[in-house]
């Protein structure tokens, strides 16, 4: 254990304004400063220092709460938060409707292109003699359909990802609304509200990789990865 980590932990543990969760986190971070790689130890010390700074600001009366403790002062802030959540939710919902429609269209286009690339040579073979001119035209049609199908599928993937992120925002906004309701009833639940803002501002849905073999043939893609 480095002396700095010990001193920081002592300050947090002895402060009357530190919450039990903060003390537990500080103890864990203090322990983490002695294990793992140098980078992990440094990260633990840095987080411990951040907790200590937050406690110091609170002790000095400088930490500004998100919502005032006084119910009268808190009421307009909470009303504003509710209005904010509702307005953003309405926008997110309307965008989600548009994206969902677009997502379906691109998926249908992708399937249509794939069908053309498959059916064009089959129909050609069944309905007429195979000449070199016809083969060239069919090959061009199949090639265009394949490229078009891949592009449509990629656009579908992007719209699908956008839709999922918007759905994620809808969930976080519902959480935010619930946190505001909870705060009206129990003013000590500010951390829940702070967490809901974290949920709203962060992305939990990872971005898709560009078109790869696995997009077209998942098993082949995974086999290639393993090798």
């Amino acid at each position: 254990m480095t002396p700095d980590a010990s001193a920081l932990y002592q300050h947090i543990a002895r402060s009357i304004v530190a919450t039990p969760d903060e003390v537990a986190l500080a103890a864990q971070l203090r322990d983490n400063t002695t294990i793992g790689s140098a980078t992990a130890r440094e990260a633990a010390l840095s987080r411990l220092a951040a907790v200590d700074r937050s406690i110091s600001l609170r002790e000095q009366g400088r930490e500004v709460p998100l919502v005032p403790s006084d119910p009268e002062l808190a009421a307009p802030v909470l009303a504003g938060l509710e209005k904010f959540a509702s307005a953003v939710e309405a926008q997110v919902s309307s965008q989600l409707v548009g994206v969902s429609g677009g997502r379906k269209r691109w998926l249908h286009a992708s399937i249509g292109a794939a069908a053309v690339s498959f059916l064009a040579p089959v129909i050609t073979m069944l309905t007429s003699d195979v000449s070199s001119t016809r083969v060239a035209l069919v090959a061009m049609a199949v090639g265009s359909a394949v490229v078009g199908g891949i592009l449509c599928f990629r656009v579908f993937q992007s719209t699908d990802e956008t839709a999922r992120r918007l759905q994620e925002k809808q969930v976080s906004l519902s959480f935010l609304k619930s946190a505001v309701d909870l705060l009206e009833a129990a003013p000590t639940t500010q951390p829940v509200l702070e967490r809901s803002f974290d949920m709203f501002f962060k992305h939990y849905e990872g971005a898709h990789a560009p078109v790869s073999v696995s997009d077209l043939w998942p098993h082949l893609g995974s086999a290639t990865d393993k090798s």
Partner: protein
Amino acid sequence: MERLVTIFNLAARGDMLPPGEIHQIRRALTAGGLCILPSDTCYALAGNPLIAGVPALVNSVLDRHEEKISLSFGSQPMVERYVDLGYREHRLLDAADKSTPITLVAAVSTDLPDQVRRALPAALYTTGELGIRLSQSWIERQVSSELDVPVTSAAIYYADGQPVRSFDDAITIVISGLLRAQNDETPLVAVRHPPVNSKGVSSVVGYKRDEDGRNVLVVFREGAVESRRVIEIAGKLSARDVEDWT
């Protein structure tokens, strides 16, 4: 049992300690220690009230049981971070000077985080309010400013109730208290200061709401400032009133 006390000396009233010495006091108080220092009217025991157990130790050492403990602040902006001050409170606070030592009882600020609003008054044996003082003792202000938090300001008394103005007696009383509390680990520092001439300890005043919801001036403890004088101060327009109302 022997007790180690680090002593710093102030040559004249109004002097401040050099940075190296004030740093040693800060280190002792940050470690949960106590400091004997001259307050407005007598020697007082200072500690960091935000460290668990320190206010209780102050009361234990001074044999005060669960008496309310007032705080001394380094500056008015620091006071304003902890308590809500209206024009009534400002009148009392503005009038406090060397010959008018006043401890003001004011409501804990609504802007403070919940943990502070709950924990600080509870640690000082009050409910929803703090006893605050902007001391005329520069060393007391210097210590608070150095820590960037208020410090406890509990007057040291003789057994007969007289405030202690002798440095040696203050040391003896505090060390006896620490021995009585079987505490031999708490760091102890002290600041020696030329004798202070005062009629008594500070008067403790504040406002409370009566049954009809009106703010009523209350003198919780009559000290060096008589109640009559407190009422006079509270009813007098101040320069701040004129500034705020015009």
